[in-house]
C-alpha cells in the first residue's frame, strides 16, 4: 500500500465508525426504529464475533508448519481460564503470553 492508500483506508475506518455512531441521532431523533433494524442489531453481534475469530485464524495452516497447535493450545487456555476466572484482561494476557512462549521456544 502507498501512503495515500493507507490514509484512505484509515479514513474509511473512521468514517464507517462515525457513520454508525452518528446515524441514529440523525435519523431517529423523532419517530420509531423499524423492527428489522432492531432485529439485526440484536442478531448481528454474535455472528460478527464468530467471523472475527475465524478472520484472525485465516492464515493458520493445519497441513504444514506447526499444524495450528500453538493456536489450538493457547485458545484452549483462554477458554479454560476465562470460564474459571471470567476476567477478560487475565484471559487475553495469559493466552498471548502462552502463544508467544510456544512459538518462540517450542515450535
Amino acid at each position: 500500500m502507498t501512503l495515500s492508500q493507507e490514509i484512505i483506508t484509515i479514513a474509511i475506518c473512521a468514517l464507517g465508525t462515525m457513520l454508525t455512531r452518528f446515524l441514529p441521532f440523525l435519523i431517529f431523533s423523532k419517530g420509531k426504529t423499524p423492527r428489522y433494524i432492531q432485529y439485526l442489531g440484536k442478531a448481528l453481534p454474535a455472528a460478527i464475533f464468530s467471523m472475527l475469530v475465524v478472520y484472525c485464524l485465516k492464515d493458520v495452516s493445519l497441513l504444514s508448519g506447526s499444524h495450528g497447535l500453538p493456536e489450538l493450545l493457547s485458545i484452549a487456555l483462554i477458554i479454560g481460564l476465562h470460564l474459571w476466572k471470567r476476567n477478560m484482561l487475565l484471559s487475553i494476557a495469559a493466552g498471548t503470553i502462552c502463544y508467544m512462549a510456544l512459538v518462540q521456544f517450542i515450535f
Partner: protein
Amino acid sequence: MSRSTIIKRSFSAALPQTLPILTGFLFLGFSYGFYMRSLGFSFLYPMLMALTIFGGSLEFVAVSMLLGSFAPLQTFLMALMIQARHLFYGISMLEKYKNTGWKKIYLIFGMCDESFSINYSASIPQDADRGWFMFFVTLLNQFYWVAGATLGGIFGSIISINTEGLEFVMTALFVVIFLEQWLKEKRHITALIGLIASVFCLLGFGADSFLLPTMICILAGLTLFKKPIEKAGGLQ
C-alpha cells in the same frame, strides 16, 4: 454553585468510574501500539488511529487491512459491520445525550462500548452535571486508549525483546469477546450462522477474499432465519 465548581465535581465523579477502563485500555492500547510497531509502523499510526477511529476491534482489524492489498469497499463494509452495534448504543442514548450542548458532538464521536456502558448505567451525583460527567467519562476513556497506543508504539521501537507471536493478542481479544457473547446467549443460532458462513467462505474463497462473501452470507442467513431466531428467543 459556580460553573467551575460544577465542572470540577463532575470530573471528580467521573474519574473513579473510569478506573477499570484505565487498566484495560492502557494494556490493550499498549499491546495495539506495540503490535503495530512490531509490524514496522511508526507510533504515529496507532496514535492517530486511536484518535480518529477510537474503536479497538476495528483498529486491530485495520492493521491487517493496511498490510493487505488496497480494498476500500471491503474496508468500509468491514468497518460498518464491526461497528454496527454503535447504531443501537445511539438509539439508547438519544434521550440521555439531549441538552448537552456542544458536548453532544464529542459524546457521540467517542461513544465506544465502555463509554456507552458507563454513561448509560452510572448514577450521577446530585451536585454534578450530567453533560459534563458524560463528557469527562468519554474524554478520559479516549485519553487512556490514545496514551496506551502511543506508548506502545514508542516503547515497541526502543525495547528489543522478541515480539514474535504478539499479534495473537488480537485473536485472544476476539476469542474472549466471542466467549463472553456465547455465555450471555440462551441460544447460539446467530453465532453458529456466523461460524458456518465464515468457515464455509474461507474454504471456498480463500484467506484473502472470504470476508465480503461471509458478510453477505451472514446478512442472508439472519434474514432467512429471522422467524426461527426470534421464536427461539436466543436474542438479548
